[in-house]
């Protein structure tokens, strides 16, 4: 259902309590003007007599009967077991994910074959363990100096020409005093290592979440007629509204190439949109961009608002719930994107939906900051499931073990033996 109509309903309710602000009234008026039926609906809900006439019906629905039916039905059917391992340590020991093998066959978790193993490896489970990723990032200031954010104390950590930079927990906040002098604009970069993640509030109040092995370069103050930032890796944005200054996210092309310039007009020759590079023009609010090189496509997923993806010779406007995919073959709309899967990282989870073994390993490698070495073939299977990403690596692997693959952790190397 269109979220907008929920807003309209809320405004109409608010109107009964108090005077709406000019802006709220404007929103309501626009909606009323769109259709004569809207206007008569407005009159209807403002009519106390009408409301009273409907309340009788409203009260007569038999909630008790419905609830009895519901409880009976739910008791009868076995619930679909969604295994969530959320942030609590309690779940650490209940690690299990649902595995999908090959083409439509299912393997139950307790169906393990004992292999008379000829390997010389110690049948013991992993001897060392790897802690999950955490809030780690490095901030590079305009003059090149770097601040390691994990160990920095809360409070003001730096002052740039026209901004004060404060650390608050796992977030960096920019408080900029606008200056008209564009030549004094400084660029900072926040980057996360493998095993890191961080949050940033940009000078305009927009929030950015950075996943592991990612970076964002941005000016310390948004002067000029647009707000442009550049990213690598994966980031989730909640952009504040400013119609006069569109928010643009630039992504560099693979394998280097010219970085799209952050100053100046966005549409120069090529405009930084060389093959693989692209820009996202933000007209609305919440979206996720995944540009990891080792993923099959560069995906932009929109949750709320509106964005336009501009790539070489082509562009695509997204509506909420849609995902644009950029590959060598071009820019296309994904069929039925799994929003939960896309947003899992930001919510502290892994969410795999029919992904290849190699893709899962690569995601784990990036978060745990390990290198994966395969001894034997890369298992040909697909994996699905969800779990918290605050688990130790051994717990995660515990679940993956049931399909006949063995693992060994040695320092920062993960050996996959199949």
């Amino acid at each position, binding site marked *: *259902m269109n979220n*907008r109509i929920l807003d309209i309903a809320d405004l109409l309710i608010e109107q009964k309590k108090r005077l709406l602000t000019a802006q709220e009234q404007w929103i309501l008026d626009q909606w009323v003007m769109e259709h004569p039926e809207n206007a008569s609906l407005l009159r209807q809900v403002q009519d106390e007599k009408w409301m009273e006439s409907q309340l009788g019906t409203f*009260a*007569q629905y038999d909630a008790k009967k419905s609830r009895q039916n519901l409880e009976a039905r739910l008791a009868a059917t076995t619930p679909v077991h969604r295994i969530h391992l959320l942030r609590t340590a309690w779940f650490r020991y209940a690690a299990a994910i649902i595995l999908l093998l090959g083409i439509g066959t299912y393997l139950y978790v307790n169906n393990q074959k004992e292999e008379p193993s000829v390997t010389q490896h110690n049948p013991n489970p992993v001897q060392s363990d790897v802690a999950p990723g955490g809030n780690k990032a490095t901030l590079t200031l305009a003059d090149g100096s770097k601040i390691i954010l994990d160990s920095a104390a809360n409070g003001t950590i730096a002052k740039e020409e026209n901004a004060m930079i404060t650390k608050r927990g796992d977030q960096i906040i920019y408080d900029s005093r606008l200056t008209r002098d564009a030549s004094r604009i400084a660029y900072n970069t926040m980057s996360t290592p493998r095993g890191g993640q961080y949050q940033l509030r940009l000078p305009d109040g927009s929030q950015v979440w950075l996943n592991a092995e990612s970076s964002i370069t941005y000016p310390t103050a948004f002067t000029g007629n647009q707000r442009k930032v550049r990213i690598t890796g994966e980031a989730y944005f909640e952009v504040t509204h400013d119609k006069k200054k569109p928010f643009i996210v630039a992504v560099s092309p693979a394998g280097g190439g010219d970085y799209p310039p952050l100053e100046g007009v966005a549409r120069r020759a090529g405009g930084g949109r060389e093959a693989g590079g692209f820009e996202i023009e933000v007209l609305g609010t919440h979206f996720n961009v995944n540009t990891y090189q080792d993923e099959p496509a560069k995906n932009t997923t929109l949750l709320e608002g509106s964005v336009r993806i501009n790539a070489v010779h082509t562009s695509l406007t997204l509506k909420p719930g849609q995902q644009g995919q950029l590959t060598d073959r071009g820019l296309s709309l994904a069929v039925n994107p799994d929003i939960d899967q896309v947003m899992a990282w930001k919510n502290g989870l892994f969410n795999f939906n029919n992904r290849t073994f190699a893709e899962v390993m690569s995601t784990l490698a990036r978060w745990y900051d390990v290198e994966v070495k395969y001894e034997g073939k890369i298992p040909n299977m697909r994996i699905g499931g969800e779990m918290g990403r605050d688990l130790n690596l051994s717990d995660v692997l515990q679940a993956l073990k049931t399909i006949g693959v063995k693992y060994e952790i040695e320092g920062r190397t993960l050996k996959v033996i199949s």
Partner: protein
Amino acid sequence: MRLFVPVKMLPPSDHDIVFLQALQQQSPAAYDRLYADFFRPLCYFAEGLVRDPAAAEDLVTESLIKLLQEVPEMNSIRQLKAYLYTITRNACYDFLRANERHQQSHEEIRYLKQFDAETAERQLVRAEMLQAIYAAIEGLPDRNKTIVKLALLEGKKNEEIAAELQMADQTVRNRKSEGLAMLRLTLKSQYGLSSTAIITGMLYFL
């Protein structure tokens, strides 16, 4: 040209988070609130579309069952609400389609009109408005609640109420107007909105 309004919401309250988590776990503790906040507006919504109160109740019961059998990830009441209205609306579509076939096979003349997206949206607005008032009534202090309910929901006159509750006419009148005044003052949106929350957006034409 369709006007698009981005709206920024307050983050969900602790109550909401606890409720959503309880739903995820299919915990009966969540059912009270699920029914209190959603059952009636959804029924009213569905009845407006299928024109059959019994069918509407069944369709909504099915929607709630569906929700609880496989709870999607939700971060806010707003998401939950959007989801419930959507699956209920779809259930109404299916119901009308199924009935159309039935009607045709029995050669009945009655024509069940399908509804369009905007009609459904308008019905949602009515349902939400009524729920806001209904919830406000439920939230009244006991001394006013019974009287106001008898007056507004059952349409009883003051004398009838006085007789039923064995009170003086004047008492009924006083408590009723007290209750109605409270309704006007305390009609709370259940979605944790405040005026500042709605208005961080600017408006775009798509």
